């Protein structure tokens, strides 16, 4: 099933000009996509447009059959909350919350999960990623690899169809890198669309499809 459809997407900034040009993409559920390309080629910009964090200058995006034209701030937030899970290079865990609470943050605005269920669900997700010993730990008490696994659990909190990861292993050692890629691969196999931006050649081993971007254009 096609979950994401980008038609003739472009992005330009006042001071940097064209960053993306004529991008056409169809992303299917159950597949892991790797986005590769030199630094500054527009990988993050593309991911942010897919993730509705940035607006494209032109072109249309369809997510789960909905065209995003005319979507306001509120609709975009709701869409993100329900359907998109984000993973960043720097993890961005809230330093004041422990692992479980961090995973609960997205559930707070999801009325489909009973308040009483939230903690249980968060603990369940953390266990799945081997973090049963880290439930009550703060960001400062966890290693990079552990933080990123908490961040993945948080991205999965509302069971989204789309997982977007921008250089998720950029701050991790090789062992953790493999754990993260394996985890992302499993998520794709479970039926989600997983899009991973990475410099690392290792992404080619895991991705079902590799999309190469050079100077804002997709290489055929």
């Amino acid at each position, binding site marked *: 099933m096609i979950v994401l459809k980008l038609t003739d997407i472009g992005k330009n900034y006042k001071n940097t000009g064209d960053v993306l040009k004529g991008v056409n993409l169809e992303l299917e559920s159950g597949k892991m996509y790797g986005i590769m390309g030199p630094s500054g080629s527009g990988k*993050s910009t593309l991911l*942010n447009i897919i*993730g509705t*964090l*940035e607006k494209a200058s032109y072109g249309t995006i369809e997510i789960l059959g909905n065209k995003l034209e005319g979507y306001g*701030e*509120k609709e975009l*937030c*709701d*869409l*993100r*909350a*329900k359907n*998109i899970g*984000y993973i*960043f*290079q*720097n993890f*961005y865990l*809230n*330093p*004041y*919350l422990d692992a479980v*609470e961090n995973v*609960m*943050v*997205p559930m*707070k*605005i999801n009325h489909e999960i009973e308040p009483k269920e939230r903690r249980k669900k968060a603990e369940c997700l953390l266990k799945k990623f081997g973090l049963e010993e880290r439930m009550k730990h703060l960001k400062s008490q966890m290693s990079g690899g552990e933080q990123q696994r908490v961040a993945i659990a*948080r991205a999965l909190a*509302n069971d989204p169809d789309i997982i977007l990861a*921008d250089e998720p292993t950029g701050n991790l050692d090789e062992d953790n890198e493999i754990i993260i890629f394996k985890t992302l691969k499993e998520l794709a196999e479970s039926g989600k669309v997983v899009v991973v931006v990475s410099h690392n050649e290792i992404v080619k081993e895991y991705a079902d499809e590799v999309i190469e971007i050079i100077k804002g254009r997709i290489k055929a």
Partner: protein
Amino acid sequence: MQYIINKKREITISVLSLLFWIINLIFAEMSINMLLKVLTAKRTDWFDNMKKVQITEDAFLIKQTELVMETIIIVMFVIFFFSSLTIILVRNLQLKHNLSEIGMFRVLGYNKNRLLGICMIDVITDMVIALPVSVVLSTVIWNKLSKDEMLSFMLTMINDTIWMDILSYVLCAITMMLVAIIHTKFFLERSLKKGVRYMLGEGVA
């Protein structure tokens, strides 16, 4: 924003900001009270009494007394503004603490109104709790200045001075609430934008 989940931290922060509100409101109430008293001096005998004390001295002393009064009022107002700023800053510092945190809330689908709402509820809750406490405290402090007034405060509930106090208190409370709300709105919107940009790897502009 972190305290939306952690109850213990929420309570600590609320107690702290409550304290700030109280201090703030006492200052505000006192300064507005003073201003009102001076403004209405012509109609009450308060200022006349002040003058009577000095009338035995020369005119220079009267002028000097007025000058001192004005200075006090100005100083009080400065304190009032600084303390309101302090409370607003302290309230918002929790948000400012880490811009990327706010950005992350946005990424996770918290819309602007939702974030704003949490802040507003916070500010208003503090107000409502702080109101009665600071009315009592500030009135007591104000009336401590003279034993007679203290007595009259105890004995007669319907008294011009008290109504004046209440009026000035309500005035300053409303002003401060407005300032806090406006500030929160602008501050939050700005940090939301900055926060998302920060998350996207552009650093804080």
